[in-house]
Structure formats: structure tokens, C-alpha cells
């Protein structure tokens, strides 16, 4: 059947309009805004070229923010994958209570992090918090988790792991299910019987595509960390937990420097774009058999 080009265009219209309206145009506006010195609410703006980006490069807060975000990303991604994969393997190895564990681990993913952040605030409270109480029982020094510059970022990362490992777990469970029983059987006959061998020679390689996906999702979601920071530390103490999204928010909506915040947003979007491309490349190269 010959397809009328007009029909093709007509059928493509809704998707094209949506993508343009919701994705391309807003990003373009942000990109244009990053070249101006527009203040939030101001009636006028000046063209400043790349001045915002030059300022970014020299801005110590932005540098701190980038390094904090990357630290958070690495800790949360590694932590979530380790815990998620470990728990998935444990749950998969036995049929009992499987649904319960899956639901329990997934709960943090489904809950509102802002609300949960308040719960964590109580848990990590320096004097009455459960964490310090428990440490006290074990004879260890209590800490001021969220207000200590050395531990604040890692405390937030722990909350991030608590939230993200459920997602990793569910994805890994699905990945484990998709490993053909025949291959495990063939492995058993070939002598791949020790659990470590089985993991290294069959499970882990065959989970490759899943792992890559989990890494990307975790990394992108860690880049987007904002709610816990905003509720618990506001980027403090002394910028110890300043992360990219929070910096953008402060610059744009607290200091009203929209042009500067837009420049940061562009960098942020570029980062996410880069991560996705990296995943794509690796997918094609390594993990598709």
C-alpha cells in the first residue's frame, strides 16, 4: 500500500508537537536564557554572551557542588547496586516471602522522599535520634550526622541508597528471572556449581544489560538529588552538601539570578545527556550478545 505523505505528517503531528512543547522549546529557552543576565521577575535583560559560563568555571560554590554531586552519585550508585543485587540474589534463591520482601524493599521508592526526609531527620537527630541511641548502646560516640561537614554528605547518600536500592532490587529481580533455566542447567552439568563460580560465570555476565540500565537510572536519579538536601541541610554545613540541583535552585529562586542558574542547568542537562549516551554505547558494545 502506498502511504500518503500527508497522512504520515498528520500521524506524526501529536508526538512532534508534544516533544517540541515539553522538551525542545523549554531547553532552548533555558539555553538562550543562559546567555543573558535576566533576573527573576525583571522586565529587562541584557545579552552577556558566555559571561555566565566563565563565572561558573571560577565559582568555588559551583565546583564544590559538582564534586559533591559526583561523590553522591558514585556512593549512591555503588551502594544501591550492591544492596539491590545482593538482596535480589537472596530473594531469588528462596521462594518464601518473596512478595513480602519485594514490596518491603520497594516501599521507599514509592514513598514521597520529602515526607521520608522528615522521618530521617528524627532518626539522625543528634540527641534523641534512633541511630545515635543505637550507637550509644553499642558503646560508640554519637555524632551530629547532618550538621557535621565530614558526615553530612554521606548521611544524605545513605538515605539515597535506602531509597534507590529498592528500585535496583526490582530491576535485578526481573533480570534474574530472564536468565534461561537451560543455561543454569548447562552450567550445573559443566561443573559451574560453586555459588561464586555461578555468579561470576553465568549470573553476572547475563545480568549485564540489567546492570547497565540500573547504573544509568541510579546515576541519573542521583544527579537529580534535591528533596533530602533541601529539607535536611539546605546545602550546609558550609556548602558540605551543596549539590547541583540545589545550587541551581538557590541561584535561580533565592538569589533570582535566572541567567546564571540557566547556565548551570545547561551543564546539568549536558551531564545527563552524556551519561545516557555512555549507556547507549556500552549497551551496543558489550552487553548485547
Amino acid at each position, binding site marked *: 500500500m502506498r502511504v500518503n505523505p500527508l497522512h504520515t505528517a498528520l500521524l506524526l503531528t501529536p508526538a512532534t508537537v508534544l516533544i517540541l512543547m515539553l522538551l525542545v522549546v523549554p531547553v532552548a529557552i533555558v539555553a538562550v536564557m543562559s546567555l543573558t543576565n535576566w533576573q527573576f521577575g525583571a522586565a529587562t535583560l541584557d545579552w552577556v554572551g558566555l559571561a555566565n559560563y566563565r563565572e561558573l568555571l571560577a565559582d568555588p560554590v559551583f565546583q564544590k557542588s559538582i564534586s559533591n554531586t559526583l561523590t553522591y552519585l558514585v556512593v549512591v550508585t555503588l551502594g544501591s547496586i550492591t544492596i539491590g543485587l545482593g538482596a535480589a540474589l537472596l530473594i531469588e534463591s528462596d521462594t518464601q516471602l518473596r512478595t513480602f520482601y519485594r514490596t518491603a524493599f520497594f516501599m521507599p521508592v514509592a514513598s514521597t522522599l520529602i515526607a521520608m526526609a522528615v522521618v530521617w531527620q528524627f532518626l539522625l537527630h543528634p540527641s534523641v535520634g534512633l541511630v545515635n541511641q543505637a550507637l550509644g548502646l553499642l558503646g560508640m560516640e554519637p555524632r551530629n550526622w547532618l550538621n557535621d561537614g565530614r558526615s553530612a554528605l554521606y548521611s544524605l547518600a545513605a538515605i539515597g541508597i535506602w531509597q534507590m536500592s529498592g528500585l535496583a532490587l526490582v530491576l535485578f529481580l526481573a533480570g534474574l528471572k530472564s536468565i534461561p533455566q537451560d543455561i543454569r542447567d548447562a552450567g550445573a552439568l559443566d561443573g559451574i556449581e560453586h555459588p561464586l563460580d555461578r555468579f561470576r560465570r553465568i549470573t553476572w555476565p547475563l545480568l549485564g544489560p540489567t546492570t547497565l540500565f540500573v547504573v544509568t537510572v541510579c546515576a541519573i536519579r542521583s544527579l537529580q538529588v534535591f528533596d533530602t538536601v533541601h529539607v535536611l541541610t539546605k546545602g550546609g554545613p558550609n556548602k558540605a552538601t551543596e549539590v547541583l540541583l540545589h545550587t541551581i535552585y538557590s541561584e535561580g529562586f533565592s538569589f533570582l539570578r535566572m541567567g546564571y542558574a540557566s547556565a548551570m542547568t545547561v551543564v546539568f542537562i549536558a551531564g545527563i545527556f552524556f551519561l545516557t549516551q555512555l549507556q547507549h554505547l556500552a549497551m551496543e558494545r558489550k552487553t548485547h*550478545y
Partner: protein
Amino acid sequence: MPDIHISGLTKQFGNTKVIKGLDLTVRDGEFLTLLGSSGCGKSTLLKLIAGLDQPDAGAIRLGERDLLALSPSQRDCAMVFQSYALYPHMTVGGNICTPLLMRGLGFWGRLPGAGLFSANTRRIKAEAQASARKVAQSLGIDGLWERKPAQLSGGQRQRVALARAMVRRPAVFLFDEPLSNLDANLRQTLRGEIRQLHDQLGVTFIYVTHDQHEAMSMSDRVAVMREGRILQLGTPEEIYTRPANLDVARFVGAPRINLLDGEVKAHGVVWAQGRLVGHSHGKAGPCRIAFRPQAGMLEAVDGLEVEGTLVNVEYTGAELIASLQVDGIEDACVFCFPANSPAIRVGQTLRVSVPFGEIHLFDADGQRRPFEALPPVMSKAA
């Protein structure tokens, strides 16, 4: 290598009994096929022998050795799967070497980089490579050594799976419908290759299939299975010419065997289609008369006469397959005639003769019963 003895084997999944107290002896070096339609328990039986699943009751012994106490890799069985079950992340070479490396190397030797520290590990790896190469050469797949399974055709994958099974020199080869995913021509070729392989290696092959052509053409003995039991165990010829019961008779042979109602009267006289066809010892009562489609003849000979309307004629090149609707019988009778037979057309009435000697007699409950065919009369006039 001794025989494999299976006795009283039972396996159930939930409330479904898949294997029901099965007894079987597999002789050393024979090619035994487990034949049955899907769900008859043949693959489950194979997995129990391989150790991939544990039975609920019963024993599996290799000579005096209790196989059930051993792990799959200790049982000295190699298996070829329908899905090939190759390791998708390894090259062909890696796949074939894996069983040797797993057996040859200890826990530390299997860790990555162990070859850097231990000359012994390096030697074992080199030996594994060498013998894997040799097996690959014998199957004509050494040219694919560096490829991944995804880059191979179905036939090549199955050859790699065969090589991976052969490289360990196992005492028993288990095949789980290995040819089912291949196209007809390739299936034919590989059927021959597997049979030749059996003759070269001289070890026991246990082959699971639902394809009666595979079973009949490859095996020394066939075990026809149904609902977790073995219906009949015998050579392909025995299974075809003396089916032990109606289920076997109907499962083996294509097109399917024809059935008519008959009756055993007093003194063991067997009647069918209104005439005497032979004698059978034992109690009187209704019985089933069966004959193969190939037994029918268009020319009139002394024998059972089947008359009906021709409802379908298929020309296959080598023969004509004709379906005859006979009065009082639900299923049409099917006959195979030579392709050069006189022209027959759908709708015409046809009379087919079946020599008495071609008749199989079964009880009303489907068990074969002794049958002595009426000797053919040379001339109808006599």
C-alpha cells in the same frame, strides 16, 4: 561402563504427578529414545537422570553407584538442550573449554588472572584449549572459534553444544529434543551425524523427542511414554510391528493407524466388518481391529474389506493419501497408495482390501491381544 538402572522413580510438581513409579534399564552403549507427546514426562525423566531435579521417590543407579547422591557434574553425564543453552557471553572456544576448565582447575585456579601466578594453571588451560580445538575440528566448527553464539546459525549452535558435551568424554549423553528448533533439511543431516557420533563414541545416548521419525530412525531401542509411564520399550521394529497397546499403535506410524470395532466370539473367533478375520485366545467380547494406512490395497485380495466414500485425497509425490468415510465409524480410514495407482476422485465409493496378516488386535481397554490371522485363500473362487 555399567547399565543405568532406574526403579520406582516418582516425581510430582505440586499436585501433578509427572513421573509415576517408572522402571527402566538403559543398557551400556545403547541409543535409547524416550518418545512421547509434550507433557508425558520425558524431559523430566531426563532432568532427573542428569541431576538437575530431584525425584520424590525411587532410585537411579549407574551400576552400583547411586546417582542420586551425586551432583550433576559428578554424574558424568553431558546434556544437549533444545535451546542449545550456550553461554551467550563466551566465544565458541570459551563455551567448549568451560567444562574442562571447571573440572581441571581448583577454586583459586578459576579466579581471573590465576594463570599469571601458576604455571600449572597455565598448563591446564593450554591442554583444555588443545582438546577443545580437537573436538571442534572433528565437528567442523573450529573456524567459528572466536565467534559469539549470537553470530551463529541454529545448526552451528547445536554443533557447538554437541562439542561442549563431547569434550568431557562423558559416560552418558543426554539429548533434550536437540533438533526441534532446526529446519527440516538440517534436522535430517544432524540426525545422521548424531547417530554416527554414537557409533564412533560407543557410549550410552539417551535421547528425548516427540518426533517419531527421529525416534525410529536413530535409536537402538525406543521407550514410548505417556502420562509419566513407559507404555512400551523395544526396538523401533517391535514398536512399529507389534505395538503393545492402542496408545503406542496410535502414536507411532504416520498417518495414524486405522481403527475398526470388532468382536471376539465364542471359541476365540474374531469378527469384523461382518466377516471372520482370524482367531484370538482369551475371553470373548468387543475388541478393536487396527491396521496401518500402508496395509490397504486397491486390488481385491482376500482380506478385510473396507468400503466407503472418498472424502479427501492428498498427493505427496511419492504416494496418495486417501481418507475414506466408512459407515458406522466416526474417524475416516486413511490409506496410502502408490502414486501411480489408478485415478481416484473425491466423492467416489472405494473398496479397499486389507490382508488379514496386517491386522493388529486390541482389547476393548486397549491392550494388545494374541491374534492368529485367517490364512489367505489363494483364489476367491476356491
